[in-house]
């Protein structure tokens, strides 16, 4: 799984720590996240809502929230270029070139008063002079490729005239317009029905295969990851809990959180579950650094030290790692 030395990684994140400081309150969002994505590789990120997946993606892209000071440690390289050392101007000038993003919330990321075709080709036209007609034709083509019916007419419409799912496709078109080295897709298909979802993901697969683009796919649809990603990262409260080849994580999860997550998936067959097996409790507050394991309070196999000692990274199999004391014990016993 380790990249060869000569290959530039599409994404290389080391020990990333992100804290939001607004006034006297500090939110400790990410606590030491490391992740490599090779060119052409697709990595899925799943995890509890609020555990920092979007913050992770936005930090990679260089987007800082307004109103809070962001305190970042660690390193981020996109296609070899240091993202943290870059100035705002540099980030803006290469926006879309190195990395681009499909946002979780398309309505809020689009300007309601600008025609969609302009917003789709913005990343291109910002840097190069493109003839208006060419730009528009390109936008229409992109809209067609993401399955928007009647793209010629739709390109001229405003975001408010689109359904939620179609807006999401506009966002996808805008993100791939500039052929980035890395595409961060933050729940790109949550608003889409399965038939369109399939089509859009096929498209992303094609782009990835053709251009060697790295893909980080943030989703909560574990079913979707199976067919679309090489590796899966499970996040919880700003930390990576488990990581490994997607098929293995889905079939033989090592971490108790991953197991809980998989059990909570509603099923299309088998008995109907009036009461779905949720994991009791909720995310720990992010107002303090987490001591020990952040999942301890909700964990079915919790031990005393889980509350105080940070669990080690345990290699379960080649390329499959879990951060858990119980897994560490198992490993110890079987050795």
């Amino acid at each position, binding site marked *: *799984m380790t990249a060869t030395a000569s290959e530039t990684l599409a994404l290389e994140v080391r020990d990333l720590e992100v804290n939001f400081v607004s006034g006297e309150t*500090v939110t400790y969002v990410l606590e*030491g*996240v490391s992740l490599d994505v090779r060119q052409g590789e697709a990595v899925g990120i799943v995890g509890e809502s609020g555990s920092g997946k979007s913050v992770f993606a936005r930090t990679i892209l260089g987007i800082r929230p307004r109103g809070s000071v962001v*305190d970042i440690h660690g390193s981020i390289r996109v296609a070899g270029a240091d993202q943290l050392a870059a100035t705002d101007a540099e980030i803006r000038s290469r926006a879309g070139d190195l990395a681009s993003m499909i946002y979780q919330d398309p309505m809020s990321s689009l300007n309601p008063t600008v025609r969609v075709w302009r917003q789709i080709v913005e990343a291109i036209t910002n840097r190069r002079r493109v003839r208006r007609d060419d730009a528009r034709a390109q936008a229409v083509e992109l809209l067609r490729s993401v399955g928007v019916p009647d793209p010629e007419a739709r390109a001229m419409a405003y975001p408010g005239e689109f359904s939620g799912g179609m807006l999401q496709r506009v966002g996808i078109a805008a993100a791939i317009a500039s052929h980035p080295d890395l595409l961060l897709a933050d729940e790109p298909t949550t608003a889409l029905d399965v038939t369109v979802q399939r089509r859009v993901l096929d498209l992303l697969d094609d782009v990835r295969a053709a251009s060697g683009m790295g893909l980080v796919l943030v989703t909560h649809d574990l079913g979707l990851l199976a067919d679309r990603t090489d590796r899966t990262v499970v996040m919880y409260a700003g930390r990576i809990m488990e990581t490994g080849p997607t098929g293995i994580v889905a079939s033989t999860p090592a971490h108790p959180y991953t197991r809980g997550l998989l059990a909570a998936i509603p099923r299309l067959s088998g008995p109907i579950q009036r009461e779905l097996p949720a994991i009791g409790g909720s995310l720990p507050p992010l107002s303090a650094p987490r001591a020990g394991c952040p999942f301890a309070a909700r964990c079915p196999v919790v031990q005393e030290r889980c509350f*105080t000692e940070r669990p*080690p*990274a*345990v290699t379960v199999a080649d390329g499959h790692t879990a951060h858990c004391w119980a897994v560490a014990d198992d490993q110890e016993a079987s050795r």
Partner: protein
Amino acid sequence: MTLATRAPADAPAPAPAPAAASAAAPHASAGVAAAVRATRRRRRADATATTVAAVWLAVLAVLTLVSIATPLLDPYFQDFTAAKLGPSLAHPFGTDGNGRDVFARTVAGAQNSLVVAVITLAVGAVGGTLIGVAAGYFRGALDNVIGFLIDVVLAVPALILIITIVSFRGPSIVSIGSTIGLLMVPAFARVTRSIALTVRERDYVKAALLIDTPTPRILVRSVLPAVAPALVSYAFTAMTAAIVAEGSLSFLGYGLAAPAPSWGGIIAEGRSDLATAPWITLAPAFALAATVMAITTIGERVKERYS
């Protein structure tokens, strides 16, 4: 394997040994403290600038009161034997061509210029915002009518309008201020209308309708806060523009009547003597620049609080 969670900052390699891993618990507190300090430092710098700005405006206000309440600073007292004197203890900013004290005139000018600017803003910003928000939020016929009225105002040449109003109502502070304000209504209306148009399409406004939020409350809690940042930054630009506009009018002879001082008027008066007695122009110019900067600084703070 290319993935690992953060190792303790002081440990060179991620060791799977529990002891080393647990050492990571109170990590990064130094960085956070630095960030907290950075916010505090930025806030302190902002606070200093704001204080300086506020002090300047306060000094202006006190001097204005002094000039109104006491005969110490008389902007009209002429002493032809003491014309175009350079700055001295008796005349800190020197005297003008008529031997009037430039300091006294600058202070009196502040009063007139600022009152004109405030009236301008009151008319322009309040009127423009009301009109713009109403047009943008309610759309329909109201929007069309307002659009038409704005076009009418814009079609009338500004100078002719001012000359007409001033000659009918006399060159008083109120008539000049409200006329310039009227001319600023379209600009304010445009800025606020375009924002109100986008805000009404936002889901949070639709959600507000669903929970039966009364329209005035929607306007105050949803539309105005969205309009405010643009409005505030534009208001400060407009205020400067108003001060300058009033000066230009005075220069053209349509400002405040002749001896009454305003910054624009004094600058205009001093222009002919710029080579020989630059203080006549520089004192009010400095006052104007400092005031504009003070207003802008305070404007920034206000804007920050909104966003």
